[in-house]
């Protein structure tokens, strides 16, 4: 079976490369995307309208709860609450921009009448959102001043100011925590744009091979393959292998270009290799699923791109998730594109540990298996009799 599958895959690879339009969409467009958005993102990373933050209230006092409530009411933030570990995890995974820990004694110090007894807040910001760190600090300062204004006693503050001038004074003490172990943020827009560009290449491969199964059926070559001394499993395996090789080699080629010419050095090569394999596996499954969306080449191509574009839109393939509103970031969990990008970013600059990589890897593997099974079961082998 192996040699026949290789022959089938080789044929499909050759057909893909001979189709100039298809090869352009599959290989050149993603590269253009990487460069174009890389340049744009270089100036855009960190800008957003609504920041999703996780508040960790370790103080559990009425004053700390009141402060957390102020943050929740702020238009600039979309606030959720969690324990410290989960909050850190959410930021590391890119689900939240930052976490804010109201440490023990926060409420008591917030109520202090003395200027220099400052409440302590720990902040951890997504490494991709450097600019937001300053914005968050500014916002927290504003709300701290509002909260503290009610407690400060004029006589005390006058004396304190005489003893210790207000130069460099802050109403709260910030501790900026490191969210990831190694690299703190993507060094350039290309670190973000290349995973996105690769996704577009993957989607192109997915669409091309999904349509090619239908083309085989409508042009009669599927019948000929079925009449050959090979089983149906081999036919689908050949198509899947060709799609996998195309997708994987495209991703590898783009990362090599990114590395050599754009300075995108992955943090964990092994993780990246596994991620690229699993991204290819997931989208081979989706390719198989797409092939059953219609009976003609046109319908499969149209509906297939419809599904793929929806995945890309939701998953951050068109606009990076960091620029999405909070509700859309939550919705993006249903898109395989989100997990594909996250698995690549986790290996390139988010510095995910192996255990942190398991979730995106698991999702991608599951997507591949489930979608392939649905596609293989629903695929029509029907040929017409006389």
């Amino acid at each position, binding site marked *: 079976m192996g*040699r026949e599958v290789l022959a089938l895959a080789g044929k499909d690879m050759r*057909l893909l490369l001979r189709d100039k339009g298809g090869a352009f969409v599959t290989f050149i467009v993603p590269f253009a995307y990487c460069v174009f958005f890389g340049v744009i993102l270089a100036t855009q990373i960190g800008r957003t309208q609504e920041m999703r933050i996780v508040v960790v209230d370790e103080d559990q006092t009425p004053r700390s709860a009141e402060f957390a409530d102020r943050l929740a009411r702020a238009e600039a933030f979309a606030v959720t609450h969690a324990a410290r570990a989960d909050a850190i995890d959410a930021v590391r995974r890119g689900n939240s921009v930052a976490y804010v820990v109201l440490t023990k004694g926060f409420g008591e110090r917030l109520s202090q009448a003395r200027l220099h007894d400052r409440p302590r807040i720990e902040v951890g910001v997504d490494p991709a959102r450097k600019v937001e760190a300053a914005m968050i600090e500014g916002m927290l300062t504003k709300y701290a001043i509002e909260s503290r204004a009610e407690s400060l006693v004029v006589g005390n503050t006058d004396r304190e100011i005489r003893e210790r001038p207000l130069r460099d004074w802050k109403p709260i003490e910030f501790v900026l925590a490191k969210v990831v172990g190694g690299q703190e943020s993507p060094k350039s827009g290309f670190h973000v744009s290349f995973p996105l560009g690769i996704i577009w290449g993957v989607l192109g491969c997915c669409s091309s091979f999904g349509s090619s199964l239908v083309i085989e059926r409508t042009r009669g070559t599927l*019948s*000929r393959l079925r009449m050959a001394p090979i089983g149906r499993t081999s036919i689908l395996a050949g198509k899947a292998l060709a799609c996998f090789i195309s997708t994987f080699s495209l991703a590898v080629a783009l990362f090599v270009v990114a590395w050599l010419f754009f300075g995108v050095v992955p943090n964990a090569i092994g993780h990246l290799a596994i991620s690229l394999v699993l991204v290819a596996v997931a989208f081979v499954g989706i390719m198989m699923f797409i092939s059953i969306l219609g009976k003609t080449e046109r319908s499969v191509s149209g509906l297939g791109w419809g599904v793929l574009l929806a995945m890309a839109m939701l998953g951050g393939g068109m606009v990076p998730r960091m620029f999405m509103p909070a509700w859309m970031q939550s919705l993006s969990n249903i898109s395989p594109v989100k997990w594909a990008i996250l698995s690549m970013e986790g290996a390139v600059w988010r510095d995910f540990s192996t255990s942190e990589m398991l979730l995106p890897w698991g999702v991608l593997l599951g997507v591949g298996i489930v979608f392939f099974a649905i596609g293989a079961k629903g695929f029509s082998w029907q040929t017409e*009799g*006389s």
Partner: protein
Amino acid sequence: MLHLSNVVKRYSSIVAVDDLSFEASPGEIFGFLGPNGAGKTTTISMIAGLLTPDSGSIKLNGGAGPDQPHARRDVGVAPQSLAIYEELTGSENLTFFGKLAGLRGSTLRQRVAWSLDFVALNDRRADRVKTYSGGMKRRLNLAVALVHDPPLLLLDEPTVGVDPQSRNAMFERILELKTCGKTVIYTTHYMEEAQRLCDRVGIIDHGKFLAMDTVDNLIEQHGGKSVVTATRADGEVRIESTDPLDECIKLQQAGGIVSLRVDRPDLERVFLKLTGRALRD
């Protein structure tokens, strides 16, 4: 080589093939004739393993059915619709299908070269199929069926859209295959092809054989008499006879003949007599 026994295939309420039985031997060309929708392609599809009979059995060389992938190694199919990859070259198409049939290395190269030579496409072997003429594509379609040297060939209307020169060349090639001991199942709408090529012919309609025999026997049994048409100064005379030569001599002796024409019964007449003259979809 090929044995069909009581094969039935239905499409919901329509019986496409109705209790069909026949055998074909090595070195035999069996013609499969029938109007559109008669069940020819359904039968060919079942022999090729594309469709499964609802009942009955099909046995290929060695007794296995075409549903077994290994048994399909003994079958070469040239389908009615061209089934080749237009973006690949002729040589690449043959190499690909040869690999699927299990050929490797020098055997594969030899078979590809032989097949290209057999259908006279050697000089275009490196050109993409999309640059071929219709006739060349047909010939390549046939070559794909031959590349793995199968003992049984299913040729489903292989000469559709082919010019007379190419068609004549294909006939010669098919007769060569017969002398090599291949079994050929040949479906066609062209009666003169069947008459020229086939050792036996089965005429099928509504999924059943109406007649099956050698061409000569079919003509003798169902063709009727020859018609001698004599044109004289005073008009035309038509005489039906089993001995047209004798009739011609008699007419000549009677004198006054301007011209004589003899219409011998042929397979087309047999076909129309058995299947009727009503138009089919």
